[in-house]
């Protein structure tokens, strides 16, 4: 599992540079795509948890992830429409999607308490990774002020999710 987490981390930490052309920082359309994809993948993970978990705390957390990430992604879509920006698929988005599919398959084999623990551990790691990417790459690279502001709010929200997930990990143990 650590392997998979570090794969996701590596995708966000490193592929942002080579994937997005030699040394070039990601463009706003690429950043919008990465941020939207990251949110959508967490919604998908939460839906898997809602289908599999019977733990009330885990389910409440997953429901919140669906609610929060859908709300932020709706805001993101409204913004890209307003700015007339077309989100652009890129290697970072594709890498995230691939890593999430592998994680989903891995979690699918688990059930009960072991699923709950693996889901929550991944939520902590995933939010940590996305937050790191927002902080070090996506926010500093964004040129549009409104996109930057949305990402900054997103970072605070996702830090909250990470902290909440950490608290539930401690509680379900």
């Amino acid at each position, binding site marked *: 599992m650590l392997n998979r987490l570090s794969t996701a981390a590596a995708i966000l930490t490193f592929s942002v540079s080579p994937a997005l052309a030699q040394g070039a920082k990601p463009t706003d359309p690429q950043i919008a795509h990465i941020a939207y994809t990251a949110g959508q993948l967490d919604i998908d993970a939460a839906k898997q948890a809602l289908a599999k978990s019977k733990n009330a705390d885990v389910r409440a957390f997953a429901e*919140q992830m669906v*609610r*929060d990430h859908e*709300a*932020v992604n*709706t*805001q993101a879509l409204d913004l890209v429409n307003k700015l007339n920006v077309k989100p652009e698929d890129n290697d970072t988005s594709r890498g995230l999607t691939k890593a999430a599919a592998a994680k989903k398959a891995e979690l699918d084999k688990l059930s009960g308490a072991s699923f709950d623990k693996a889901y929550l551990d991944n939520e902590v790691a995933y939010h940590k990774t996305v937050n790191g990417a927002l902080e070090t790459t996506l926010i500093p690279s964004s040129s549009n002020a409104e996109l930057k502001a949305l990402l*900054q*709010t997103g970072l*605070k*929200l996702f*830090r*909250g*999710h990470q*902290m*909440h997930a950490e*608290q539930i990990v401690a509680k379900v143990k």
Partner: protein
Amino acid sequence: MLRRTFLATLAAVGLPRQASGAAWRALPKSLAKAGATVQITITGIAFVEHKQPLTVGDTVEWINKDVVAHTATARNKDWRVLIPENAKATLVLKKPGTVEFYCEYHPNMTGKLVIREKKS
């Protein structure tokens, strides 16, 4: 019978403002003196710091301008308020003291209320 006892008790202790329904309306106006309403705004995944002094009997009106729901939950478990996205919720302060609070959904959101005793 029980209802009378309840009313008498409320009257004796001084009725907190949130007591609702018939019991509330039945009380004389002197006991119904309302406290102030203090607004605390939530925006950008944070409680905006407020400077107004608070007194027992005051109402805190939580105004959530974010697109996600939040809670204001007292660390000492005295109260918990759910504030849906783009909505308001109120809390009547019943006890004096310094109460730290946080959002259960986003525990990085924190704040503090300093509530003074009501002057008689």
